[in-house]
């Protein structure tokens, strides 16, 4: 059985190496920051449309960093791999969970027109804030499990804490920048961890020599494999 276990660990190590770049962390941090971006602009006196555009811009920046980072930083350093069916199923389940959470968000927004936002818990936190927090815990917890990405458990707590904290800072604490402050506090650990991981990743996996040859044909492979060690250096020199 030990062979089976170590093969599993081998696969897990290979799979988890794609989370070592910190790009997921930066993306999630920016996404959370985007949620506070709109209210921050509103607090600065910007019109509602511009506040919404500002929030969306930060979210778009997160998306751009995610896709560009994976494409330009991670893949050229770690290579490309297609994992087995179990990982594909996990990824699909995570997508379903995230999609469901968007639906919950839309439903909450729709319900806010019915006056549900006036219902408070402990006379301070509105019910939607608690539903949002619970939704974050469930969604991120499930996604962490399906994606085998353990840092997401901690991020679930940060996402869940952001909304109630913003309400508390803005309401009872009467801080004018309560919303952006709460979201900045919650997203800072993700952004810091992401940046530290990204720097470590770039140091650990430098780009190979640009002229590293790719095996183009079977014959080329054979020719290269029969070249004695050191011969290439002598030829170059």
């Amino acid at each position: 059985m030990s062979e089976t276990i170590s093969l599993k660990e081998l696969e897990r190590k290979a799979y988890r190496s794609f989370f070592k770049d910190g790009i997921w962390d930066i993306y999630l941090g920016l996404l959370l920051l985007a949620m506070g971006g709109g209210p921050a602009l509103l607090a600065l006196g910007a019109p509602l449309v511009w506040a919404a555009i500002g929030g969306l811009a930060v979210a778009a920046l997160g998306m751009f960093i995610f896709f560009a980072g994976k494409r330009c930083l991670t893949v050229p350093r770690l290579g490309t791999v297609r994992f087995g069916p179990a990982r594909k199923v996990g990824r699909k389940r995570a997508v379903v969970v995230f999609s469901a959470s968007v639906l919950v968000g839309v439903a909450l927004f729709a319900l806010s027109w019915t006056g549900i936002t006036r219902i408070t818990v402990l006379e301070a936190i509105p019910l939607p804030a608690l539903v949002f927090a619970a939704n974050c815990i469930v969604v991120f917890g499930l996604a962490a499990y399906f994606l085998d990405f353990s840092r997401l458990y901690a991020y679930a707590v940060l996402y869940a804490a952001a909304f109630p904290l913003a309400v508390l800072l803005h309401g009872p604490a009467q801080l004018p920048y309560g919303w952006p402050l709460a979201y900045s506090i919650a997203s800072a650990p993700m952004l810091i961890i992401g940046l530290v991981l990204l720097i470590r990743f770039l140091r650990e996996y430098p780009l190979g020599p640009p002229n590293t040859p790719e095996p183009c044909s079977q014959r080329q492979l054979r020719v290269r494999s029969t070249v004695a060690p050191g011969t290439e250096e002598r030829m170059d020199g």
Partner: protein
Amino acid sequence: MANGRDDSGQRPSLADIDRLIHEPARFLVMAHLYVVEAADFLFLQRQTNLTWGNLSSHMSKLEDAGYVHVEKSFKGKKPHTMLRLTEEGRKAFRDYRDRMQETLSALPE
């Protein structure tokens, strides 16, 4: 391979072990390819810490044996090579694992 015996009912001997897989670097390559669907050269290099020349040498041996299939394509203008184990390669790796397990479990304490 039921009960560690081959088709003729004999226990396999150490000499029957697939020497192509038995070499540590090739074993590492085979193990990595066994747990994924396909991977490119760079990924294998990163995971196994083998040099490019070493890896390509082992890869050509595994390809010659029919254990590895090489898919060539282009990503933009750059050539890109994906590698995956063939059915024969997967079977050979499973057989190797079973045989080693059987052989080593029979060792006295």
